[in-house]
């Protein structure tokens, strides 16, 4: 498969994630869309890793890409734990997860 298709697919997913961040008000869904963005990057990395194996011809050439995906997942997990904790804390105080209500700090 030509790599362009994969890049196109990944950036499309990425953009959908961005659009999601922009048009949703629910903090959790916004966060989910960010996860979608991360996954787009993951997909791209895997695709590239396979490309590199093909172009260089070395058996382990693209493996770092896949390792990176692994790390991204790890970090994402940590981030999710913290993020959800923060959202819950917020919810506990305001009973809302609407990010449009976050406007005490402005100007």
């Amino acid at each position: 498969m030509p790599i362009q298709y994969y890049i196109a697919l990944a950036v499309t997913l990425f953009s959908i994630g961005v659009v999601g961040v922009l048009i949703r008000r629910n903090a959790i869904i916004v966060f989910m869309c960010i996860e979608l963005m991360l996954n787009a990057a993951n997909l791209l990395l895997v695709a590239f890793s396979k490309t590199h194996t093909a172009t260089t011809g070395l058996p382990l050439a693209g493996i770092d890409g896949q390792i990176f995906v692994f790390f991204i997942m790890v970090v994402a997990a940590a981030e999710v734990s913290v993020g959800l904790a923060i959202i819950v804390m917020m919810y506990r105080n305001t009973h809302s997860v609407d990010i449009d209500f976050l406007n005490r700090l402005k100007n």
Partner: protein
Amino acid sequence: MNLAYLVPLFPLVGFLINGLFRKQLSKQAVSVVGCGVLLASFILSLVLFFDIKAGGAGVRTYFDFINVADFKIPFAFQVDQLTAVFLLIITGVGSLIHIYSSAYMQEETPQHFARYFAYLNLFVFSMLLLVMGANFLIMFIGWEGVGLCSYLLIGYWFKNDTFNYAARKAFVMNRIGDLGFLIALFWILSKTGTLSYHELFTPDMLAKFSRADVTAITLLLFVGATGKSAQIPLYTWLPDAMAGPTPVSALIHAATMVTAGIYMIARSHLLYSLAPFTNEIIAIIGVATAVFAASIALRQNDIKKVLAYSTVSQLGYMFLGLGVGAYGGAVFHVMTHAFFKALLFLGAGSVIHAMGGQQDSRFMGGLKKFMPVTHITFLLACLAIAGVPPFSGFFSKDEILAAAYASSPVLYYLGVLGALFTAFYMFRIYAMTFLGKFRGTQEQAHHLHESPKAMTIPLSILAVLAVIAGFLGIPAIFAPHAHLLENFLSPVFSDLPAASETLSHQTEWMLMLVTTVLVIATIIWAWKKYADYQKSEQQETGLSKVLANKWYVDEIYDGLIVNPVMKFSNFLKNVIDKTFIDGIVNGVGRFVQYSSRQIRLVQSGQVGGYILMMVLSLVVLFVIFWNQAYILTFIHWIFK
């Protein structure tokens, strides 16, 4: 010659003593010091005069005033025949007026009395610097110095705002003239690099000037002269300067300071001889001033104002003389004028003194019997100024008019017209003051008295001089030893090219005769007309009103120059400076604040908004990155 520096030093010392210790000194001490230094100066001047007569002219350098590499201006005095004559006039007339003042100013408090004498001494010092300086810069020092003293003395009674205004007007008008003088100096400097007479007035140096240079320089110097010597168009300060004490008017505004312009032009006659165009201008301005000022004097009632316009007019004659090349004649007239005009002023002062400050001649009359000495001396002076032979004015004026005739008959006719005016207004004022009945208040009549000795003695001395001084310049047609003064001055003016045409004796006789007859006729007419002057409430009309209002020159100046300048200043101050320039500066500040208020609205507090901005910025950055070649070209174009 070795003692030359003492001549100005004495008045300076007098100034310092009177100025610094004005609280401590009594009036007597002040007048002794004030008059004493002047007398000392006068004696020294006499010594110098004889020294020079014996051929002791020369230059003395004392120290480097300005010395910058190629630019050297020494502090030096040059004493020659011309200087000597002026020295005598200044110190001589000056001494008399100082003595006169000591009586005239008796009513002042000691402190102000001392201030008066300090100023007066300072004036003499400045004037002496002016005439003794060996270069234009020293002359300029004196030139400005006398202007300053004139300012100080006009505004001597500083509580009166009109007087202050007159003083300021005098100073500013003088400054306008000084501007011309100064520019001329720079011009000379930039061409030759020197201002010293003895270096400058050599053929080599003069050859460095182009024709245009000479014309410009001489014209500019003449502008300076019009300021100091009250010629059209800068004469208006002089009548106003009568605000000062009368002896001051006599000394500064009649006898000495105002003749500085004549001295200066006479001093730089070599330059002027190279600039025929300028000479024509000088002659025209001179004669125009002579007639114009005289015409104003015809309808003035204030005795000092009449004398002031008369001074302006007489100075016009002197410039006419300079313009037509009669330098000797001009200097001669300076001298005679100094005597008779000082006399007139002092006489007027005496009258005013007696009248308790009243200057309007409509309220005088019949003073003949109360003040015999004043009356006689005043009459003599009037005869002298009117040019009745054999009084001094006759000879000096005649010499100028003769030279004018030789140059151009039109100048002569105008000159004669001015002379007739002079005769008329002088006898008008004489008649109004001394003849007829007394028209003042009862109280004034009680106080009428002859002035004290200290005033009348100078009057008498001056009267004698006014009568006989003419013989110093008696024309050749009268006597074998003619032109004494001119002969004495001849070393100074010898380097001039000989006059192209001299008048025949016949013509000279005829001219004299005509003038004399006309003048005497005018005098008789004026005498008749005003001997029994009565006040009338009738408003003046027509030309006479215009004359009484001095041709409205002050008003025209106000309208054309003063007010526009003030308006312009206001415009600059309020509109340009405050609104425009400062407005821009403050506007920048306000703009920043305004944009701050606007830009901070972007910081809406909405996460969505922030992320939207980030995404958009990301897009913009990409676009910029992809198209930056164009943008860079644009930026370089801006900052090139």
